[in-house]
């Protein structure tokens, strides 16, 4: 075993140990209980690679001084799902859902690219305009849901269908390719050795966390999600809370759109963020947030996003036949789902095999 191989092994074991340790810690603490099962799944993924594909853990430091390796790719590519999931978590917490985020990403990318290739090319103008437009798209969703009382899934379906058309209208149906070093840094740059998208996702996550956990906003959102009428009687401006969450979701989707567009240095209105709304919802629910509204866990959603991306990166790294790639994803969804269910765990624990060990009740 040469030097680099043992290094890979050490990194792999460290990653695995971190995962396993946090699984145990989260299992013990009341506050992070919801993180346990996604962490178990992530540990299993890492364990598999440690045994069969240790090169998966290869990390190098490039000449430019940043980290390079599959683990960093997971961090990099999961950030777009994490951004969407942050917004999605708050929307789902109010009892809604936003299936237009993929299309909003396409619009945001289209706006930014159009500005970049125009004579008024400027990083700040592109970013500000793209975020304004996507926030406005979120506002539109919010108005349909909160003010017009249309069911969230149908209200956001409108923008899901039309939004991609709007994005194509902006780009005139072509893929706009651009070369703008400052703008490219959003999706490709590195800060302190880590990719910029990961920093962006972390920032948005921390902002959302601060807003919901240090102010009463989070409590209001949960109350609205639990029982809208009761929330209104309690003096909470339920409508306002609902549309604020959609605006925030639109804003997050806008940033995710910028990240994707800058990462591939072009705006592809047709494919940017296609079906990513499903991944975002998946990440949210894997993280322990209930689809019916009420309780929400932002940290869980981030972990869910990382788990989803880790799964596809692992599949690419292990040369899984592209035709069957959907199947492991299905198994992951259902397995995490089952593990999250109290009823399933209590039934499993009631099995004779586990009783013998005096299995700790979950």
């Amino acid at each position: 075993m040469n030097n680099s191989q043992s290094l890979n092994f050490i990194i792999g074991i460290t990653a695995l140990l971190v995962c396993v340790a946090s699984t145990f810690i989260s299992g013990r603490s009341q506050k992070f209980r919801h993180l346990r099962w996604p962490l178990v799944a992530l540990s299993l993924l890492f364990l598999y690679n440690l045994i069969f594909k240790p090169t998966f853990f290869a990390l190098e430091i490039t000449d430019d001084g940043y980290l390079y390796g599959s683990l960093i790719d997971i961090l990099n590519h999961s950030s777009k799902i994490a951004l969407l999931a942050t917004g999605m978590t708050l929307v789902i917490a109010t009892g809604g859902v936003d299936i237009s985020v993929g299309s909003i990403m396409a619009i945001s990318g289209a706006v930014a690219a159009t500005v970049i290739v125009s004579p008024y090319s400027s990083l700040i103008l592109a970013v500000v305009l793209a975020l304004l437009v996507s926030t406005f798209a979120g506002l539109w969703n919010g108005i349909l849901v909160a003010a017009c009382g249309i069911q969230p899934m149908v209200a956001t379906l409108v923008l899901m269908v039309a939004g991609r058309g709007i994005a194509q209208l902006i780009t005139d149906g072509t893929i706009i390719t651009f070369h703008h070093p400052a703008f490219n840094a959003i999706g490709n740059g590195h800060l302190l050795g880590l990719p910029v998208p990961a920093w962006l996702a972390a920032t948005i996550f921390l902002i959302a966390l601060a807003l919901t956990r240090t102010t009463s906003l989070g409590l209001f959102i949960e109350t609205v999600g639990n029982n809208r009428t009761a929330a209104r009687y309690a003096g909470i401006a339920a409508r306002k809370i609902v549309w604020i969450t959609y605006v925030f979701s639109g804003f997050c989707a806008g940033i995710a759109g910028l990240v994707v567009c800058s990462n591939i240095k072009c705006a592809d209105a047709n494919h940017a963020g296609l079906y990513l709304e499903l991944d975002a919802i998946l990440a949210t629910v894997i993280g322990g947030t209930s689809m019916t509204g009420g309780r929400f866990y932002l940290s869980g959603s981030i972990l869910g996003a990382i788990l989803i991306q880790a799964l596809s990166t692992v599949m690419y790294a292990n040369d899984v036949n592209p035709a069957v790639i959907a199947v492991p994803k299905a198994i992951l969804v259902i397995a995490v789902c089952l593990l999250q269910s109290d009823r399933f765990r209590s039934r499993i624990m009631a099995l004779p095999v586990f009783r013998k060990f005096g299995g700790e009740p979950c």
Partner: protein
Amino acid sequence: MKKYLSLLILPLLLLVSCKKAAEGEGSKTITVGFSQIGAESDWRKASTLSIKEEAKKRGIELKFSDAQQKQENQLKAIRAFIAQGVDVIALAPVVTTGWDDVLKEARAANIPVILIDRRVDVSEDGLYACYIGADCTEEGRKAGRWLIENVGKQAGIAELVGTVGSGPAVERKKGFEEAIKGEPGLKIIKSQSGDFTRSQGKEVMEQFLKSPERDQINVLYAHNDDMALGAIQAIEEAGKKPGKDIVIISCDGVKEIFRQILAGKANCTVECNPMVGPYLFDVVETYMRGETIPPRVIPHEDVFDAKNITQEVIDGRSY
């Protein structure tokens, strides 16, 4: 309630008003119904534009319908064209299977169907009148031949497959494998789907370049230019030189890949000509004059590499 209904009527009227204006010109014009797959790439857009502009130039009324990648929408469109009584139907089929019934319906209504881009599997001959377009298997073969002639007989190949199960992906893979079959030194060591998009192409290439076999990869074969463009970025980010350390071969021939070839970052693209408008309407006019139409029209297609690409070639291309 009436007041609100008028809210609905207004946009619908707007929708139909432009149609009304077009109908006023007289009824002798030829009407062609065209069912396009979608608008998923620059290539597709060029194909749509070519047909639309040619129709306008020749004074032919074109009924255009975008199927958004769904066969069911194309079937609906063809049935709607039959109901409208168009003279000729042009179809760019999204898949090769499943056209029997609707083509029989068109035949029963005496409307000839002209296929574009892709042939279809049908149970009997004569269900379509003419097929205009290249064949993706041949494009795959051309790519393979270029590789043998220009790179040699020893190479580790990474392949970026198109959307799993789609016609071009299957055929371009098949053709390429046929061409390199006789050369034991040419091996496909990595193959994964990049879904025909730049972002997926880049993401998959990143993983290829981190695999234990990464040092053996010295050729990339991408089923379309967009995936190749994404992969070029991934190769550069990995600190390698696209076009030199890894030879890049792709299909379609869009402008951006020409720029990359000129800059030395890509090596070869097998053209798949989307400008079928003139060919299509030549056939349509032949048919309307009552003459027999050719069963097969092959548009002109080239293989482009650094030898025949210049700035003038790039400027001369519309897509």
